[in-house]
């Protein structure tokens, strides 16, 4: 290889139910421990057995997103080879079991490894073929096998000696087979990196950690891809951290439970996907009018209805923005990567409590379930701000308490049940300052204005979008949420071209005066979104008064690949 290798992408494919995901994540962790940046991506159908599963990881010095083409394919069955041949680079290699797979392509570097035979020899089950394959991958890439063996020992620490032993022999068997039979080094070789203080985890795990760090005391969710892994994380980690985690009968109940918790003074959160959020819509308005804080995690997947259950899309922005009857404030935070999932989930609780409104964490399958390496989170950066809370003493000295007092900021203090003198009516009917139902025209207008003023106040505190690349460029890419990864990866590869990138985490309220100025001044705008109708693009038109020149949209369930964005940018810049 003459050119410097920046990234290596490895793909493992096989039948659903055969542990592809676990194998892939194990490999990712080995590389993470070797000091590599890792970004993984999994594709699987909505079924348990018999479908086709793949797991891809891109590794490198610095990786913002997984990259195609694939450089090394592990084909556990013939379908993997047939389906993904076109995704491979010209110099790619394929690892396969010759009794199962016939790689009918002469250009590839072929590494036949008798998975079945080695598995039999070590006395392992069929699933152990994955372990053989992982050993082979490390040998092909010129790494050593010790990291994998350590990981096997710790992963299976609670299992019997014989299970640990046969897994170790399986990994070593795959590794040694390559070493003994393929002497010529493969085009892609890994090198030893200095050890780094980092974590390898998914967006959902980061959201969960952020919630726990923020003091979430009640997490309620009904299972739905891609939010179920967050529920499972909260059950596992939350129980060690005093979080009550409840799986109720449906999403309607979930949000109402969380609202009850928020009313009683706990930091409460729900998690779902678009379909489940459809059921929560009614209660969203309830949080709005009763001014009850709640954090809502929504992991998007392609709709409508059941759509593509295990794939990714950014199709719910407008839905969240307008969900529920009537007009009331809400906030939408769309983290762009795993790190932002952690810090901004924690921040969401502050915004929810300070402004007493529902706050969304808007993610998608790509971000929710994709694992990547990040610098170890710094809990000290998380500040807990609970907003205005009335105490016994404050109420006693004021002589009275009005839950929905009309104020300049729109914010009126909350009193939690148990507080003496703070009794009030958190009322879903329009209400007066004490909370009692009213249909008075003047009070209605005052309460509406009070609630909506909170959004103006929040806007003053909303972090600005981040501009990546040169300050001035011929083309400014604009995106929100998880499209950050592929765009940053593309920008990295487009160094020298006149392109920069404006990324939004805080999507609503929108825009700040500064953002408006940036968007109006940019020479040419290209909005990049994983949806069919350009939902953020239309928000720019509506709120900024500028029509972005180019839209780059993708809605086939797959995330953008960096090379697709590069191609689009080239076209725009060359046709100016």
């Amino acid at each position, binding site marked *: 290889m003459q050119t410097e290798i920046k990234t290596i992408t490895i793909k493992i494919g096989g039948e659903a139910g055969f542990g592809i995901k676990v194998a892939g994540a194990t490999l990712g962790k080995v590389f993470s*421990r070797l000091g590599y940046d890792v970004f993984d991506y999994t594709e699987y159908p909505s079924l348990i057995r018999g479908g086709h599963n793949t797991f891809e990881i891109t590794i490198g010095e610095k990786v913002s997103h997984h990259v195609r083409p694939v450089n090394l394919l592990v084909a556990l069955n013939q379908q993997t080879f047939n389906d993904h041949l076109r995704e491979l680079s010209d110099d790619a290699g394929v690892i396969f079991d010759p009794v199962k797979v016939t790689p009918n392509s002469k250009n590839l570097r072929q590494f036949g490894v008798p998975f079945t035979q080695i598995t039999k020899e070590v006395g392992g089950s069929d699933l152990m073929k994955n372990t053989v394959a992982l050993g082979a991958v490390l040998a092909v890439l010129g790494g050593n096998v010790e990291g994998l063996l350590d990981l096997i020992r710790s992963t299976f620490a609670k299992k019997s000696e014989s299970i640990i032993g046969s897994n170790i022999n399986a990994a070593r068997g795959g590794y040694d087979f390559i070493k003994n039979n393929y002497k010529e080094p493969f085009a892609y070789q890994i090198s030893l990196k200095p050890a780094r203080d980092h*974590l*390898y*985890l998914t967006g959902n795990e980061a959201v969960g*950690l952020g919630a*726990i*760090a923020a*003091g979430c*005391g*009640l997490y*309620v969710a009904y299972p739905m891809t891609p939010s179920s892994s967050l529920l499972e994380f909260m059950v596992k*980690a939350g129980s*060690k*951290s*005093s979080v*009550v985690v409840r799986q*109720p*009968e*449906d999403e*309607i*109940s*979930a949000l*109402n*439970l*969380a*609202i*009850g*918790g*928020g*009313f*009683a*003074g*706990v930091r*409460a959160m729900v998690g779902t996907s678009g379909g489940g959020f459809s059921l929560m819509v*009614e*209660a969203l308005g*309830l949080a709005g009018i*009763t001014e009850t804080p709640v954090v809502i995690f929504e992991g998007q997947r392609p709709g409508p209805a059941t759509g593509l259950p295990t794939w990714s899309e950014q199709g719910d922005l407008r839905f969240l923005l307008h969900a529920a009857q009537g007009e009331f404030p809400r906030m939408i935070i769309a983290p762009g990567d795993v790190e932002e999932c952690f810090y901004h989930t924690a921040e969401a609780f502050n915004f929810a409590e300070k402004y007493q409104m529902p706050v969304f964490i808007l993610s998608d399958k790509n971000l929710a379930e994709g694992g990547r390496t990040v610098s*170890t*989170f710094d*809990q000290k950066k998380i500040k*807990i701000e609970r907003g205005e809370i009335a105490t*016994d003493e404050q109420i*006693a000295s004021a002589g009275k308490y009005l839950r929905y007092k009309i104020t300049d900021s729109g914010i009126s203090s909350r009193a*939690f*049940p*148990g*507080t*003496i*003198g*703070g*009794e*009030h*009516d*958190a*009322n*879903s*009917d329009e209400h007066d300052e004490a909370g*009692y*139902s009213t249909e008075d025209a003047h009070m209605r207008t005052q309460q509406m204005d009070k609630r909506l003023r909170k959004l103006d106040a929040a806007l003053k505190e909303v972090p600005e979008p981040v501009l990546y690349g040169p300050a001035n460029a011929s083309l400014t890419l604009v995106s929100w949420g998880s499209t950050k990864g592929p765009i940053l990866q593309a920008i990295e590869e487009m160094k020298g071209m006149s392109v920069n990138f404006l990324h939004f985490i805080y999507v609503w309220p929108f825009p700040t005066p500064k953002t408006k100025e940036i968007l109006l001044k940019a020479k040419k705008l290209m909005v990049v979104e994983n949806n069919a109708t350009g939902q953020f693009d239309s928000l720019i038109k509506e709120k900024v008064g500028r029509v972005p020149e180019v839209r780059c949209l993708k809605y086939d369930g797959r995330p953008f690949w960096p090379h697709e964005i590069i191609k689009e940018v080239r076209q725009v810049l060359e046709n100016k």
Partner: protein
Amino acid sequence: MPYHPELTNPLKVEDFNTGVFPTWCPGCGDFGIWAALKNALVKLNLPPHKVVLVFGIGCSGNFNNFVKAYVFHGLHGRALPVGAGVKLANHELDVIVIGGDGDGYAEGLNHFIQTIRSNVNLTYIVHDNHVYSLTTGQASPTSPTGFKSKTTPTGAFEYPFNPLAMAVSAGGSFIARGFAGDIPHLADLIVAGVRHKGFSFIDVMQPCPTFNPELSYDWYRKRIYKLETEGYAPDNRFKAWEKAQEPISEKIALGVFYQEERPTLEDYYSLPQRKPQAQRSLDKIDINPLFEPYK
């Protein structure tokens, strides 16, 4: 505990008034339930700041304006999950959820069944007037077959829903029936329900003189009898179910149909052993041990 300056000592019914006078029709059974609830709170010696009342939507929901407490007026059919959420956030509060038959047995039926199963320690009082009243007179799940209303001009077709039998089947741990026309008896049932450790359910026969005038106070009085006066022991799920099958057009039993003690949802989360979630200090959370699996 600091003294609540606005309250009398001992508590009186007036301590629970809000100054907003009920908007119910003259003769509405809701007045009886209102009085029984306030009497029960006095008997329980529960000051308003320690009580959380969660309401659904309907004539029963309009109750939210008429009792001083920490009140949450939620959505049609959705009061129970809000109540359960309050309880999980602060298990030291006494939570009473109040709804109607349309609210709880139509729109909210699933929440009713699932909340019974959870055995969360709260009390659920249903104003059962066998009709939708706030929407001015349509058949409800407990309307008798043949009930004529604006939406059932030829008479209701469906089999009437049996809330007590449903509660028995779903694993209810306290199942009772009261009557809005017998305030002391209903107040005692509410007291027993609040004291019960677990989910307590009280279905209240409530006359609606405006939209269901046939089922008047007299109509009910001719049919009601009290379980406790005939030696009924509420300790057998099969007998409770059998008792719940008596058609209300013939006989209406009042009192506790079934009661048992078993672990509550709060027990499952070990909440009684610690400070309420809502009072947990958030300064000392350390998430660093949680990073281990990701290193």
